[in-house]
């Protein structure tokens, strides 16, 4: 039995040399390599996403972890720049999990409160759609991946909390998918408009101006139309296509279309 094993070993060229010398050498080499700094990242104290590890720590295949590899594409906790958010609601509209609530944050006027997204990470699937939709680039995804909390309610990140993430200046990943130029525009079905100013008031980018129009003359036998003689004009280059005006219009006279 023993002799058989030996023959087999010899056939594979694995004598004592292969069984003792080689592993000893390999171990010693590994020891020397990690004498100064083993590859272990001392996790809570050091983090792989720390830029200082970029290009330095390598995966088994020898590729460096870092630039263009993992972290540039990572979708972790969101960072929100409250200051540039225009409360357009697009993030909330685009979320497939309905985990974004728009909540009031200080900074708006009483009539026109400023609303920013609040994300429930208990539901979020980190798809990045919200970040993609955000016209201002103020909602981005960071490399932060730690979410453990002791209460379920702590999973809900208020805008302020996401602003804190923003201020930590973690590597951020503005998810912007390449897409064709948006040819959609807000069009007005003029005869229906009553000039109520709702669209202009709620437009987050203030791109709607109410222009005076000539007073219409009532047809014989009819009462003069009860309306304000103004009509919205939309500045397409400022419009972020959030659709807020469409949803606030009481007469449903705004609609999506293309300029002809």
């Amino acid at each position: 039995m023993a002799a058989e094993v030996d023959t087999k070993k010899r056939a594979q060229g694995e004598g004592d040399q292969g069984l003792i010398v080689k592993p000893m050498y390999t171990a010693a080499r590994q020891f020397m390599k990690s004498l100064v700094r083993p590859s272990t990242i001392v996790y809570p104290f050091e983090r792989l996403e720390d830029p200082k590890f970029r290009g330095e720590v390598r995966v088994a295949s020898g590729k460096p972890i870092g630039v263009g590899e993992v972290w540039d594409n990572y979708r972790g906790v969101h960072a929100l720049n409250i200051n540039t958010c225009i409360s357009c609601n697009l993030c909330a509209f685009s979320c497939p999990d309905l985990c974004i609530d728009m909540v009031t944050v200080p900074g708006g006027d009483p009539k026109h409160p400023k609303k920013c997204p609040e994300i429930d990470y208990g539901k979020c699937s980190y798809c990045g759609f919200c970040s993609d939709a955000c016209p201002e680039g103020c909602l981005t995804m960071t490399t932060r991946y730690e979410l453990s909390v002791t209460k379920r309610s702590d999973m809900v990140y208020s805008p302020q909390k996401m602003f804190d993430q923003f201020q930590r200046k973690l590597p951020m990943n503005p998810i912007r998918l390449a897409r064709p130029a948006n040819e959609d525009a807000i069009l007005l079905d003029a005869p229906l408009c009553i000039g109520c100013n709702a669209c202009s008031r709620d437009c987050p980018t203030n791109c709607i101006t109410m222009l005076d129009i000539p007073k219409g003359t009532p047809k014989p036998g009819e009462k003069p139309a009860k309306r304000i003689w103004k009509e919205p004009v939309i500045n397409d280059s400022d419009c972020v296509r959030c659709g807020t005006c469409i949803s606030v219009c009481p007469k449903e006279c705004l609609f999506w279309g293309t300029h002809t």
Partner: protein
Amino acid sequence: MALTTLWDVAYFLASALLTLVGRVIPPLAAPLSNGDVIWGLSALVFGAILLAASMINTIMLIWFERKMLGRFMDRRGAMHVGYAGLLQNFADGLKLFRKNTFKPREADELGFYAGPIAYMVTSLLMFGVLPISTGWSDGSLPLSMLLALVIFSFAPLFIFISAWSSNNKYSLMGGMRSAAQMIAYEVPILLAVVAVVLVSGSFDLNTIVAEQQNYWFWGPLVLAMVVFAIGMLAEMERIPFDLPEAEAELVEGWNTEYGGMLFAFFMLADYLRALAGSFLIVLLFLGGWTLPTYVPSALTTFPLAGIFWFLVKTYAVFGVFVWIRAALPRVRTDQLLRIGWMRMIPLSLAAVVLAAALVLVKCLPVFGCIPSMGG
């Protein structure tokens, strides 16, 4: 009184303590200055110093192994408790100490509890005879090396007792493997020691070290040292010879059923034996606490230099054991026994013959001229 030996230190401490007590409580002064009382207390202090020295060294040894093994595996090892994890083992010990020890219902009570304790005690006993510097032991034991080896070979008995009393098939198998292995490797170890005895002409560890003043024995006795080191690996049950506790096959081997403090005893005793084995290698082959004479004397004359260099050598030897553990795979039982009986014993016999030949042709002083061997 010059405090040159450990006994002097113990005696000094004991008499100082007793004098102090006598000062504070005058009626006790007379009975406490009795020579026998001082002698008894200094014996206790002596033992306590030995105990503390061996325990602290053992625990540092575990730390050393954890750190080194970590580096071999490209990780860091213990690092949070104390500086660089130095106190981690104390924390682990404390945790084990606080744990409930339990006994399987069918286990034999006496053997189950007595086994680990006896194992631990005999492992500690060894440090009473292993000198780590001049004056550590008073040299009144002309057979101290034999005594150390005898105590060393108690282990399989107690391991087998605890394995048998655990009433668990894995424990029993581990215990049987352990006994077979230790008995098989006892023979080459003793033969390698015979080579040392032939060259040094003494069984006293102090004399053996003194004989290495001119050349360390690993030069002439390199074969004996290799045999001794491999045998020690098997005696310590370290990888690649750790099959008595082969985790993959036997759960945890003969200490499967032990938990809490009793398990800690086993662990500690294992490392005590590892420390004693490294001590023995340093004492027998690496010149003990001596350094080669071409080393500048500043390195050898500072206080406690002997202990310092002895420990440096010990940790280096243990480092090699850790290296082996990191690199080599575990052997099978049949391979282990075949290596023991069919390779180690002939090799050790060859080592004995070689040593005898060297002594006969009186060419040993040659080694004193080779710088790397001392002298």
